[in-house]
């Protein structure tokens, strides 16, 4: 026996081997007995999902969506906004099912009360979160419906699809990055952000205001507020504009993007995005090119 292989070391090695073997046997038996048989399709579906865990599908993450799809044995009612129709198609092929088409959506900010158009009346110095500012007061511009500009929506966005414009104080949505996960919609305490149909060539027309006050009151705080005059409702031939509580709302399911309504709005509250510039008409100012 040399000094390394004495009685103590051998005994400890032997006992560890013995304990290890017993534990291995026990663990093997237990693992066999309580084996969780998981549908292999769950892993398959999860691998196809983008893995953003954004919660846009309404479930707790990509794994939860995969589990739900496999458990329910259907694709209807499930949709992955970041993946879009392409990912849903891939899942359908992998599982051998049919995938339905869904219209792609995008977030739009329905407020244009920038610092210039809705000038600050007071100066806010509290915590820079919209949730707090909303409870405290109407906002620097004075509109009780308008954007507070503290950027809660931007912080909620996991896809870097938003930024706060320093000049206007309003959030801007980047068309190519927004995946319509609705995180910003849920975060906004004033429900300013809405999910709307992405539209052909990303073209959209919407009323960029949610102020329900009477025209005069709304106008006092903001130059581009919807004053509820109803001109756009009369102009629309497709009954796409709903008028309620001093506020016009364009139903994106009915809107044909005919571009008739934006020019009639006296306060330029109706925005059109990603359209080619209008041809100048004689005797009329060209339409506001808002973006």
């Amino acid at each position, binding site marked *: 026996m040399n000094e390394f292989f004495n009685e103590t070391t051998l005994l400890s090695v032997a006992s560890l081997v013995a304990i290890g073997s017993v534990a291995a046997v026990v663990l093997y038996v237990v693992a066999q007995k309580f084996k969780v048989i998981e549908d292999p399709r769950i892993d398959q579906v999860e691998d196809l999902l983008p893995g953003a865990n954004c919660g846009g599908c309404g479930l707790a993450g990509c794994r939860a969506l995969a589990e739900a799809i496999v458990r329910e044995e259907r694709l209807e009612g499930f949709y992955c906004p970041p993946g879009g129709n392409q990912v849903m198609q891939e899942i359908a092929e992998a599982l051998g099912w049919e995938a339905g088409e869904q219209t792609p959506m995008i977030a739009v900010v329905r407020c244009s009360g920038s610092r210039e158009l809705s000038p600050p*009346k*007071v100066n806010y*110095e*509290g*915590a820079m*979160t919209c*949730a*707090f500012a909303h*409870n*405290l*007061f*109407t*906002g620097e511009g*004075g509109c*009780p419906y308008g954007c507070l500009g503290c950027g809660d929506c931007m912080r909620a966005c996991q896809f870097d699809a938003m930024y706060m414009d320093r000049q206007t104080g309003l959030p801007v949505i980047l068309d190519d990055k927004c995946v319509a996960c609705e995180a910003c919609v849920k975060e906004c305490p004033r429900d300013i952000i809405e999910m709307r149909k992405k539209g052909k060539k990303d073209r959209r027309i919407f009323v960029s205001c949610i102020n329900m*006050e009477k025209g005069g*009151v709304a106008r006092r705080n903001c130059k581009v507020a919807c004053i509820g005059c109803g001109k756009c409702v009369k102009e629309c031939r497709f009954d796409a504009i709903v008028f309620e509580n001093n506020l016009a709302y364009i139903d994106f399911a009915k809107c044909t993007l005919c571009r008739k309504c934006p020019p009639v709005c006296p306060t330029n509250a109706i925005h059109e995005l990603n359209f080619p510039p209008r041809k100048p008409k004689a005797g009329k100012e060209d339409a506001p090119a808002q973006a």
Partner: protein
Amino acid sequence: MGGVHPPENKFAEKASIEVLPPPKTVFIPLSQHLGVPAVPVVEKGDEVKTGQLIAKGEAFISANIHASVSGKVVKIDLVTDSSGYRKKAIVIQVEGDEWADGIDLDIPLVKECQLGREQIVQKINENGIVGLGGATFPSHVKMMVPTGKKAEYLIINGVECEPCLTADHRLMLEKGEEILAGISIQMKALEVDKAIVGIEANKPDAVEHLKNLAGPYPGISVEALEVKYPQGAEKQLIKSLLGREVPSGKLPIEVGCVVHNVGTSFAVYEAVQKNKPLIERVVTVTGSSLKKPVNLWVRIGTPVIDLIEAAGGLPEDTGKVINGGPMMGKALNDLNVPVTKGTSGILVLTDEQAHRPPEQHCIRCGRCVTVCPMGLEPYLLAILSDKKRLEECEQERLMDCMECGSCLYICPSGRPLLDQMRVGKTRLGKLIRERSG
């Protein structure tokens, strides 16, 4: 436990209460109290007299509202309140000052009260009395002790721990007799035989004055207390006076106490003995830059700008006007907002005083924990609230926070601790309500 001692700055301490004449138009909000807004009982075009009921508190936790002036109801419409949001209010164009029948305008003190318990509570209810300390909880609800509980002490809050404010102080000096008579009426209604008036030691004249007057009233004692903010909060006052601790989430009645403000006692006296509704209150108008800091008797619904005019006008270097005191008050968006039942002071700050220090990182000094009167950990609650970890907030007793602002005051890094906790409280409150259905 905890507490801070901000500079007292009681500029209007020596200014006796002046009567501010009624303005040309008053705006009387329908929600001046905690609870359900009152329902108007007058219509546009109606002629009203001072003290006439104009809106009825129909729910259990609600309060009646009376015309504070005589004149014509011009409209019942949305009017901007101190937060800038528009709330429903009754607008009255003032014509003369004719009082409604049944209100005793004689000055002599009426000490004896022949009414029974229930009649007193009814009078308080009818006359729309709410807690004048700031929380504006309807007083008649507080007067009805829940079955199975017994009130032992009536605690009267004359602490006025908020810096700058002097309304209660002046009221105690000038209306001491009436306050004591009011206290004895409240004692009768609550069926208690002991009442303690707690006053901070920085008002020795008020302590002295009430002690002298309290002689003939059995059971009423006056105590001088150490100067500390926020001692005027119910739970802290009970702890200071009786050493009893109100359990988390419970009301003072758990330890046999009912707490009222001195201003409320005065209003109770007027309501019960003189049948006068709550249509005016004392408001301190103060600030280091004001020409003449004053205490004023103001009709409810008077625009704040009128009060500032009475104090010598708005100084040019004004940075902020606060409704309330510097610790718990809220900055006003607009100076045309009306005085309500809960307005105890108007504080004008210069531009230099008005700004917050720049926000820096938390240095883990723990001062916010030391000063929190409820024994909370504000630095932690602020982070948890910000990260929306609401269950943890609940475990850390976020709902016990009374928003006194001591943490915000003491924080050397100027962190918006209270702002974040308020957001957390709103969210957690919603969660708790949803959970209980």
